[in-house]
């Protein structure tokens, strides 16, 4: 049991480092989609709710579990859909694609 917890602490720490590295690379341009995305992904807590709702160990646990399943599912369904809806709005200038794909810095050349 104790070793299990220690391993989990390692997982937590490593995931934390990966998280800092990954999230710091995300530009402010996409911070709102990022929030919606982490919301959708954190709907993974559904797996805990599923176990509680389906364990049938007590009526109260089942009720709590069912509400939790509904909340988590709403976050997953809503979260992924809204993230996709938002990301689909981010479009590049038509001409900029053909000109030069990575030219956000060149200010003068990209007017069309």
């Amino acid at each position, binding site marked *: 049991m104790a070793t299990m917890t220690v391993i989990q602490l390692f997982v937590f720490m490593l995931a934390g480092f990966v998280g800092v590295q990954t999230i710091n690379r995300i530009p402010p341009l996409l911070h709102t989609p990022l929030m919606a995305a982490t919301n959708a992904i954190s709907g993974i807590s559904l797996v805990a709710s599923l176990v509680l709702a389906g364990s049938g160990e007590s009526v109260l646990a089942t009720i709590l579990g069912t509400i939790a399943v509904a909340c988590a599912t709403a976050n997953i369904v809503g979260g992924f859909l*809204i993230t996709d809806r938002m990301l689909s709005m981010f479009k590049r200038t038509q001409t900029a694609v053909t000109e030069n794909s990575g030219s*956000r810095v060149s200010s003068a050349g990209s007017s069309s």
Partner: protein
Amino acid sequence: MSEILIQLAYLLAAFLFITALRALSRPDSARRGMQLAAFGMAVAIMATLFQARIVSYEWIVVGAAVGAIAGYPLSLWVPMTAMPQRIALSHAFGALAATLVGIGEYIIGFSGGTLVRSTVAALGLEVFFGGVTVTGSLMAFGKLQEILPGRPVIFRGQNAINALLFAACCFCVVWLIVFPTHVVIFSVMVALAVLLGVLFVLPIGGADMPVVVSLLNSYAGLAAVATGFAIDNNILIIVGALDGLSGLILAIAMSKAMNRSFANVLFGAFGSTQAATAVETAAAGEMSPTTTENAALRLAYAARVIMVPGYGLAVSQAQHQMRELGDLIEKRGGDVRYAIHPVAGRMPGHMNVLLAEAGVPYDKLVDMDEINDRFVEADVAIVVGANDVVNPAARTNPASPIFGMPILKVEDAKSVLVLKRGKGKGFSGVENDLFIDPKTSMLFGDARQSLLDLALQVKVA
């Protein structure tokens, strides 16, 4: 299905989730990445359904159906301006799920006599973070949706009471670790956490919500981490850590952009407007108003134009009008960029989404750090519904309450056009030197109407 296969499914899901977050670093790869993450989510859920502890499925189906039906309209019908409320609400949902799981697992463990100290410690933290996030997010939702008053509600000893509540919660967690079976203490802690969530958001004003929403995102993540520890589930720990850190990083970025130290944010001192005591140190001067015709003429013949949208733009729903004006200037050969201050909207990156929705290509949306050097070259900078984020006093006047706040260097532009409703002060109540600068012309009126008129005039110029 064997436990190993379930765990491998979780491993795949974790991999896809991290890949999705990496894909979010570029707008062109982000969408595909999120679709892969959704696939990973489906795999993880399917695998979980085979878990040995699950013996009946009818309530799972009921819960999932209700959730799916609720989630669908919450995503497709919500306008982009309401995104902060929508995100706050989903934090509440996520945290409620975590809290209920925590309570449920505690009940099962209690009646089965299987409560172990380490598990109870995790459950305690889960319910604490979850409880605070549920009510905190609902409060944030209420304020953003304007169901509750948006102004800060302040009373004496507020911070002391919050600190006391927090200490009581910590005490309860410690107590539970020592005596895992004290149900009363567990219940008291749930109640205290829920109360703390309300009191913690109460003193925070509407414009400070970006920090709060980010911070609640972080707490929701921490609740998920605690769930993972409680039920020995690695993917919850991983996802919770990612979620928690993402919220924390955004909260720090936001508080920096709003000129508040993070410690200041954490201890709830924000929202209390220092502006009330602000001394008027701004240089005296007159604003010089201009006409639509004059302004349009200048825009029509400008080679480089930078648009500076503030939250006032979103309030008057004028994003489309701004984009149309920008398109017209571009059609005449001008180069148009949009300068985005980190706190231009009501949540991190909000203004980007609003302008992207209006059809502005994302390569024209430029972050503050990148665009600030380019104001010098701009012939005209158009400020729409922004005030504090363009106030040069933040850099020049140490006596100003907003001194030190990172701002868009609009005053470097060759000329400035400010679209403003009236002559009033900004959110912080500070005078803005930019408005009385000789090279600044003011165009008073509703932002939406002004932009429409400007576009009409540019068309015929």
